[in-house]
């Protein structure tokens, strides 16, 4: 997926038993689709920051949607039950969806977890990549890629950095 491309619609099961689609966030100023999972230590290192950023930008109309497409048969830590537990443990403030068929992950050309696709109010891709530049230590982050992209987008500008290499575990394909 390239900068400027349109978001690909989805309708996937959420951890609360509901179905969640991209369309239901039509009124949002921006949507960040984040391919994520339970078992990956890169996700675990970043997930508190995902929750914090969603909280900081919720009032400005930003919606995060996390999608787990990992093969849950080979990696049971990524099945729906485990996802529900993780979301409760970490107090996720965004939906956490299961992409069992992996069709959505493939459609987005997602490769890693975590991997962020940020779409503007017209649902055009404005940022793709990592959350920031330091998975090991949030106190040592120098470039807050996602926050900077959100600030630019909400200010009506293109982010200065539109793409960074996603750093994390590979999506576990079937």
């Amino acid at each position: 997926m390239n900068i400027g491309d349109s978001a690909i619609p989805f309708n996937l099961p959420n951890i609360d038993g509901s179905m969640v689609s991209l369309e239901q966030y039509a009124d949002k100023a921006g949507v960040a689709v984040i391919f994520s999972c339970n078992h990956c230590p890169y996700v675990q290192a970043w997930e508190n920051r995902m929750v914090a950023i969603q909280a900081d930008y919720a009032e400005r109309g930003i919606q995060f949607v996390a999608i787990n497409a990992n093969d849950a048969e080979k990696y049971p830590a990524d099945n729906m039950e485990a996802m529900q537990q993780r979301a409760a443990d970490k107090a996720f403030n965004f939906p956490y969806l299961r992409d069992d068929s992996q069709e959505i992950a493939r459609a987005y050309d997602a490769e890693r977890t975590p991997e962020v696709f940020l779409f503007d109010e017209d649902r055009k891709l404005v940022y793709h990549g990592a959350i920031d530049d330091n998975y090991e230590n949030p106190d040592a982050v120098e470039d807050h890629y996602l926050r900077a992209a959100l600030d630019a987008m909400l200010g009506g500008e293109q982010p200065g950095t539109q793409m960074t290499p996603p750093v994390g575990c590979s999506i576990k394909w079937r």
Partner: protein
Amino acid sequence: MHIDFLYFEDCPSHDVALARLREVLAEEQVTAAITVIKVETEQEAVANRFVGSPTIRIEGEDIDPPPADMPYVLACRAYRRPDDGRITPLPTASVIRKAVRAHKKETSP
């Protein structure tokens, strides 16, 4: 001292972990033979008792021993930072240093 460094290529940053290991060894003035093992299949993961990438063993002992029931998988490994308990995908220099020093004591005359 003999060290095994095991990794799964799909996990990024194993090169960072290997560089960190070499840096600690240099700081501790330890000469060690490092065997780098690329784990590529589930069978190799089982054969090597591989619980995730990267795994570092000094004289066969894991620098951060995993729980006994941890499965052997082709996956990235989660470590905990000893200072604040946060999850990190790489062992910290302090964890590596502690293990190196423990084995230095064992092998010193």
